[in-house]
């Protein structure tokens, strides 16, 4: 993994705060993310981790703070000063977003092949044969058999849908992928396969990932770094194994001690 090789951060988050009326969604969050780095945001439901993820991915405008992203040309741009068109292009080329519920990230009424090909067509690919070839290649990479390429995701199992969603996101070779509980709601054995697949793809493609999860085992397996959130604040952050093996904050200790041992 080449986490440290680049000197320039890919994403810089400065004091991001989001209020819902008087209620705090997330408060004063700052961090840098480097190319190839996987950052896990953990915490219970309502801790603000999904709010933060949505602010970072421009799906929810923060009340205060700034988020800068290094564009493919190397220039650092404030995400909320990009035009809508620029932001859309970013979201469908250089970024990915993997939803917990695959139906939120897929078009359930079009075929698996079209789901994967959509981003390609959106950026101007107009050769059916080549689009299909790429879709087929990506289905293979996420371990979906070629003969399912013309089937709707409605006929897929939960694990397959999630893998399809991943393929759909990665087809344009994004540099940053946001994931919101990507293994949530899946059977344990299905989870294990998905995690292993994600781990390999992330390493092979050198992806930067921000993953929201309440599952510390997922964080341990996938992430380099971890941020623990509670009541909208980041209460502890650091190397994943350090935070999990030597938690400092009372809440983190509670989280870690709450894991069931098998």
């Amino acid at each position, binding site marked *: 993994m080449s986490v440290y090789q680049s000197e320039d951060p890919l994403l810089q988050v400065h004091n991001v705060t989001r209020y819902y009326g008087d209620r705090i969604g997330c408060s004063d969050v700052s961090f840098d993310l480097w190319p190839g780095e996987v950052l896990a945001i953990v915490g219970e439901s309502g801790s603000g981790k999904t709010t933060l993820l949505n602010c970072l991915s421009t799906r929810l405008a923060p009340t205060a703070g700034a988020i800068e992203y290094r564009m493919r040309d190397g220039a650092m741009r404030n995400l909320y000063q990009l035009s809508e068109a620029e932001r859309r292009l970013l979201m469908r080329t250089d970024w990915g977003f993997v939803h917990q519920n695959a139906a939120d990230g897929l078009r359930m009424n079009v075929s698996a092949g079209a789901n994967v090909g959509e981003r390609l067509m959106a950026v101007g690919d107009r050769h059916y044969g080549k689009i299909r070839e790429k879709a087929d290649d990506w289905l293979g990479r996420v371990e979906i058999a070629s003969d399912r390429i013309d089937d709707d995701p409605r006929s897929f199992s939960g694990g397959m849908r999630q893998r399809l969603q991943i393929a759909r996101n990665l087809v344009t070779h994004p540099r940053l992928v946001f994931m919101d509980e990507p293994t949530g709601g899946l059977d344990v054995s299905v989870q294990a396969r998905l995690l292993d697949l994600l781990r390999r793809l992330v390493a092979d493609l050198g992806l930067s990932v921000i993953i929201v999860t309440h599952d510390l085992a997922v964080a341990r397996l996938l992430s380099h*770094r971890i941020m623990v959130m509670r009541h909208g604040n980041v209460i502890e952050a650091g190397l994943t194994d350090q935070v999990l093996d*030597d938690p400092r904050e009372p809440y983190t200790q509670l989280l870690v001690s709450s894991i069931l041992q098998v």
Partner: protein
Amino acid sequence: MPVRLYLNNVGKSFTMHLQGGMVIPVVSNVEFSVASGECVVLGGPSGAGKSSILKMIYGNYRCDEGQILVTAGDEIINVATAEPRQMLSLRDRTIGYVSQFLRTIPRVSAEDVVAEPLIAQGTSETEGLETARSLLARLNVPERLWKLPPATFSGGEQQRVNIARGFIAHYPVLLLDEPTASLDAANRAVVIRLVEEKKAQGVAMVGILHDQDVRDEIANRIIDVTSFAADAAA
């Protein structure tokens, strides 16, 4: 020989918030250095803090006090204050950790598990796998297992896979966390030879070894950790 690793006034305690904020002191004023080509063994009864010291050097535990200085190329990095990405870099390039327990990853074969750290350091996949196979052979892991994921291996086989993974790459500093525990005599001898080879390459090693024979064979110095016992009143 140049010093590779220097612990200066290192202290560590755990605060157990779930037990009413109870503070458990572990070690304090730890001070020693390890030179290139040297193997320093930490001695003392269990609970004395040997493992915690090793984990602090690897950045797995936080270092509360003092400095842990590691020579990485032209730089000297203080593990106690290193940024996470500096620490990850150190783990890829500079500090290796051999433990007896393998954290298995589903669906990855034994030879891939072993080769991974070497490939991460830039060796080609072919060469990495070749080296991995020769190490597995030296550690008497049956060839029929090489292509299988180690999750289903016996405890001893998993341990040897993990030792191979720990020794394969070129780390200037290597931490040995009871690598020979529960190994048979033949495999203990292999580990001793591996350590000797690392010494000859100038690797600085810190180890925890309960096995008296192995300790006598490979230790250049033994540091009694009880001398760093933290004052419970502090």
